[in-house]
Every structure is written in structure tokens, then in C-alpha cells.
């Protein structure tokens, strides 16, 4: 790859060689976990071949139209590349604060946001870069915000954990675990009262699933039949603690029944499956069919935040997920199999995206910081 323009650009910009889109090659031969029953009722137990909560589910083979597939592939690659560069920027001391990376979970945000219109709402989490990009945020504004610059989405006031883009319905990421259940449900109430057919998607994690306000908000969504989708990204760990150690149900989706809400569980590595499930929920919500609870089973390939070595999980477990549940690899394989893409085309997209992300990093590095007196603006309207 000595003649690769991306490598050359990287060298010219003195960007660290660390980031790469694919953290490790996908083991095409590794067997998918055998499930005697559908995952909905399958026991989520640890084993060497299939760690707990793998979320396996019959994968769809029929692809949506080529534009949609390519767009989803590109967006997932964009998120992966962006996050690799956030890692790089962080470890080189170019950004202040904390960074919680979405690597490994790209299919959830991309599948879900592909099912949404621009005027639909999302609320996001501390691990929110993927949600923001999937909902339409620009790379430059994202990276500038993460570095605390004036050109950032929040003009340097929010940072990595609070990126919002109201122009595309992104009501913002939230630093409080479970902090956006109310906001998303309220946006759905607002849509209903204003008689639009907008829908709100509330992203949250397995950790937030144990916050009490979920029960309050979900109950109101049911009694008032609100167009909201609670999308739980079960990435197996709430910070450092395995979800099953602190959660009274084996499958979080089982709580939907208690709320009086429809629930679905989906393989969060399978962007096609996520798209299908969220599309169904969105269609229902738009037609006045009320809320849906979706548990997407996923895994974060990195620690809780950059700098967390994740010693609370085994190398074997991580390797299994990376080998078998890399959402980008899974979609690429489907695209190749269906003849929608060639290796060269897939690689070309990666390279284009990489160039764009590097340009965003450079834009953000060059961008000015806000004037200190701006700290006193925007407190009140």
C-alpha cells in the first residue's frame, strides 16, 4: 500500500498511523453461533463459540435498493473512521475531556436513522458520535466540537457528549445516562399535539435501561399512544459492569411487555435487520400505532472511553465479536454476495471516507477556539 494516497496524505499531515478502518480482518470461516431456537428465547449464556447476548437472529438475505445499501455502508465506514480518528486525536492530546467511542455499534445508528426522515427526532447518548453522523451531522462540525472549537456544532460549549443538530432533528446527546427518555417522549408528544407525523427515536444503552424514568416515560408513551421508539443498544456493559450482573431480565426487551408496549429484539450488528425492525416501528408510529421498544444486541469494540483498557472482559470474548459481529464486514459480505459491490468499490469508499475524515480533523485543528467571553452567552434566550 506504499502508493496509497491516503497513507501519503496521512504522512503529509503528520497524522498518526494508528487509525485504520478495520481493526482486524474478519474470519470468514468462523462459524456463526448455532441457535436451536430464535434468539428471542435463546439463553444468553457465555460459551467460547457464542458469548452471552450475541443477538444472533436469522439474517435477511434480500438487500434493499443499491442506493440505500451503499449509503448505509458508507455511513458505517464514516462512523468507524471518524471514531478511529477521535481515538487518535485523543491519545495525541489534541482534544480535551472524554471520548466514548461507537466502534462496533455502527449498524444500530445507521440502520435506525436510515428509517427516519430528516424532520424526525432522535435523542442520543454519551456514546453519541455515531447517532449524530447517522442523522446527518457534518464531519467538520463534529470534529471541531470535539476539539472545543468555535466551528463546532455547539460552538465549543458541549463537546463530545452533547452534540446536537436541531436542523436535522437531532435533539442532542446526553451526558446523563437515561437523561433523554423524557425529552424524546416529549418530542413525540409535541409531534402528536402539533399533528405532524414526525417520529422520535430515543437511543439508550443497557445501563440506562435500569434508570427509573424509562418506566415513567414509557408508560406515558403507551397511555397517550405517542410516536416514539425506545431503541436500547445493549452493548453488554454498563461502563465496566456486565449488564446481566445488574439487570433482572436476561433480555431487556422483556420489559416492553410490562410497559404494555410492543417489543422486538434484533441483531445490532446486522444493519439490514435493524433497518427492517425500525422501519416497521416507524411506520406503525406514523400511522398512530404508538410506541415500540427495540433491543439491539451489540458490542463496543473499545473500552467505555478512550483510555479504558477494558480489563473486565476477556480477549476471547472481544475477538469473537470482532470476528463474527463486525457490522461493516457483515454488510460488505452481503453486498459482495449479492453482486452489489466489488472489493475494489468497497475499498474505494473506505479511502474516500478516510480522506474526508482526515480533512475534518485538519479543519478542526486549524479552526479557532471561541472567544473566552462566549462562555457568558447562550445561558438564556
Amino acid at each position, binding site marked *: 500500500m506504499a502508493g496509497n494516497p491516503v497513507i501519503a496524505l496521512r504522512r503529509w499531515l503528520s497524522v498518526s498511523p494508528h487509525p485504520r478502518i478495520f481493526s482486524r480482518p474478519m474470519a470468514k470461516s468462523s462459524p456463526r453461533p448455532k441457535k436451536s431456537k430464535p434468539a428471542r428465547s435463546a439463553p444468553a449464556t457465555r460459551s467460547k463459540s457464542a458469548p452471552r447476548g450475541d443477538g444472533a437472529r436469522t439474517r435477511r438475505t434480500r438487500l434493499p435498493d443499491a442506493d440505500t445499501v451503499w449509503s448505509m455502508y458508507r455511513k458505517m465506514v464514516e462512523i468507524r473512521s471518524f471514531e478511529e480518528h477521535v481515538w487518535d486525536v485523543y491519545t495525541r492530546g489534541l482534544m480535551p475531556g472524554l471520548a466514548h467511542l461507537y466502534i462496533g455499534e455502527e449498524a444500530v445508528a445507521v440502520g435506525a436513522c436510515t428509517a427516519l426522515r430528516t424532520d424526525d427526532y432522535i435523542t442520543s447518548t454519551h456514546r453519541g458520535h455515531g447517532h449524530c453522523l447517522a442523522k446527518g451531522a457534518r464531519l467538520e462540525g463534529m470534529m471541531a466540537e470535539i476539539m472545543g472549537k468555535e466551528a463546532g456544532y455547539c*460552538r465549543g*460549549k458541549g463537546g463530545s457528549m452533547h452534540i*446536537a*443538530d436541531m436542523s436535522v432533528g437531532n435533539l442532542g446527546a446526553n451526558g446523563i445516562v437515561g437523561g433523554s427518555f*423524557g425529552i424524546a417522549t*416529549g418530542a413525540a408528544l*409535541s*409531534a402528536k399535539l402539533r399533528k405532524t407525523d414526525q417520529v422520535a427515536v430515543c437511543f439508550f444503552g443497557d445501563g440506562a435501561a435500569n434508570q427509573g424514568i424509562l418506566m415513567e416515560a414509557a408508560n*406515558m408513551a403507551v397511555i397517550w399512544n405517542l410516536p416514539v421508539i425506545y431503541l436500547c443498544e445493549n452493548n453488554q456493559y454498563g461502563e465496566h459492569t456486565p449488564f446481566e450482573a445488574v439487570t433482572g431480565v436476561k433480555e431487556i426487551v422483556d420489559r416492553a411487555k410490562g410497559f404494555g408496549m410492543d417489543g422486538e429484539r434484533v441483531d445490532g450488528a446486522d444493519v439490514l435487520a435493524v433497518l427492517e425492525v425500525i422501519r416497521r416501528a416507524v411506520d406503525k408510529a406514523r400511522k398512530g400505532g404508538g410506541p415500540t421498544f427495540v433491543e439491539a444486541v451489540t458490542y463496543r469494540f473499545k473500552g467505555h472511553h478512550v483510555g479504558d483498557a477494558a480489563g473486565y472482559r476477556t480477549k476471547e470474548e472481544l475477538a469473537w465479536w470482532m470476528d463474527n459481529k463486525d457490522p461493516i464486514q457483515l454488510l460488505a459480505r452481503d453486498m459482495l454476495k449479492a453482486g452489489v459491490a466489488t472489493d475494489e468499490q468497497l475499498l474505494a469508499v473506505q479511502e474516500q471516507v478516510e480522506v474526508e475524515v482526515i480533512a475534518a480533523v485538519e479543519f478542526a485543528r486549524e479552526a479557532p477556539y471561541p472567544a473566552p467571553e462566549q462562555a457568558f452567552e447562550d445561558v438564556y434566550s
Partner: protein
Amino acid sequence: MTATATAKPTREITFREAICEAMAEEMRRDEAVILIGEDVGKSGGIFKCSEGLWAEFGSNRVIDAPIAEEGYVGLSVGAAMTGMRPIAELMFGDFALLTMDQLVNQAAKIRYMTGGQCKVSLTVRLSMGAGRSSAAQHSQSLHALFAHIPGLKVAIPSCPRDAKGLLKSAIRDDNPVLFFEDKLMYNDLGEVPEQEYLIPLGQADIKRPGSDVTLVATSSMVGLSLEAAEVLAAEGIEAEVVDVRCLYPLDADTIVASAKKTGYAIVIDEGAARYGITGELASVIQERAFDWLDGPVLRIAAADVPIPFSPVLELPTIPDVARVVDAVRSLRG
């Protein structure tokens, strides 16, 4: 207040009716205004502040919420961010403690954190005040907690006229406003203009002019201070009573000007004394009026105990007229 020479027509209504009128007028004026809370609908609210609204505006705009304060205040924040102007009612101010994440971490900060991308046009109405033998979880005056939070506004009216004018301004404000209503004032009568009017947030009001001592008071403590002023007048001491009306934005100029004029100031508030409103206002006064003062700025507030149940225990914990009168006498010794 009685009608002045300009003779704008007024009528006498209760504090409760003033609150209800303000909400009704704003709901007629703007479809985005909704009311959400426990029992606010058909039943008209436990304090009857929303009587008639459900019949006029229907259950889509006067919404009976489940008993889930954090949840429905959270929904109100989301609705406020997306084009609505919710009024969330918390039956007892004590229940606001269940909503702290939504109000303090979310509503107060979202505009700022997003670099000014959105408005949180939310009004939260909540009751305050002891004196009804409701014990420690239904009697607190917690306005200081919210006045402490950048991003929130806090209104704390003392009479029907102010309640109506301030509430209408709060509903039209594009920021989260906490609106504190003393439960013991709901039946109080007062003159209110016939015609529509607004009172801007952030203007203190001199409820009684005087030259000898300044009584700076909030909510029901204003009425108490006016009573004390009558007692003092009989002794030849003319007290000026300044009604703060809003804790944020705070009209420090009016308060400080009065303290400079009289040379003595006492701050009276029903919140707990320690780290409270009285300390903050006393600080504002001494920082800006020190050279004009002829004595220390005194504070009269609730005792630093949870509010007890039995009336013989409860009443000594909250300010009364005698304490104000005694404080003035001690100052002018």
C-alpha cells in the same frame, strides 16, 4: 393595591383565580400552550388552579399526568424544545425534588450545551410554604435550590395582580421558569386589572413606601412584612416593603436603592435560613450599599429544621410578624 388616579378598572379576585386566568388567556392566545400535571384536568387541580380549563381546552391541552413527576416534567422539556409551551404543574413543591435531573441537568442546560441551538420554553408551577400542618414533605419552600441554577428563572409572586402578570410573562418566556405559589395565598383576594396586562420578569416592586427601614420580602412574606409595617407605623417607624417578585432575573437596583435610602435592611423569606435566599440578598445589599447602611443587614427565614407536623411545633419554625417587628426594633435600638 387600590385603583390609582389613572383609574384603570380593576376587580377583586383570588390568587388562585389570577393563576387560572393567566393560563386561560395564554392558552387562548397561543395553541402551543398546554398544561400538564396531576389532577389538573377534569378535577381542576387539588388547589383548583385549573378549574374550567379542561372544559374549555380539552384533554389534549389540559393533560392529566400519571403520578410520575420526573417523567412528565421530562416530557415537558422535550415538548418545549420542539415547539410547544408547556406549563407543568407540581402539586407540591416538594415533589420538584423528583424532577431535579430534568430541570437542572436538562432544561437549564440544553440551550447552553448546544451553543444556543434551541429554546426551552417551559413554565413549571409549584407550590411552597408551611403553615398547613402538612409536615416535612408537603411544606418546604425550595425556591433557593432553583435560583442557584444558571439557566433557570424563578418567579415568586405575593399577590393576585403580580401572580397573573408574572405568570403570563413566564409562559411567553423562551426559558425555563419556575413559578412558586404559596399554598396559603390561594384564597387571598386582591385587585387585578380588568384589561390584559403583563408584568415583566425581573422587576421588584415597592409595595409600601417608607423612609426608616427596608423590608425585602418574597411571596407570603410580603404580606407579613406589610402587617409588620403597620405595627411599626404605630410606633412612628416607617418601613419600606420591597417585593422581590423574581429571584432570577433579580432587580438588585430597586432593593439596593431602598436600602441606601433607609439605611437599614432586613430580608425575609420562608426558605430555610442556611445558604438561602436571605443570605444571598443580604450579600447583594451589603456589597452595594455598605457605606449607606447604619446597621447590619438582618435575615429572617425558616428555622433550619424539617417542617414539623403539629401546629405548636410548626409555627415557631416559620417567620411571623412579631419576629419582623422585633428585628426592626433591635436594629433601630
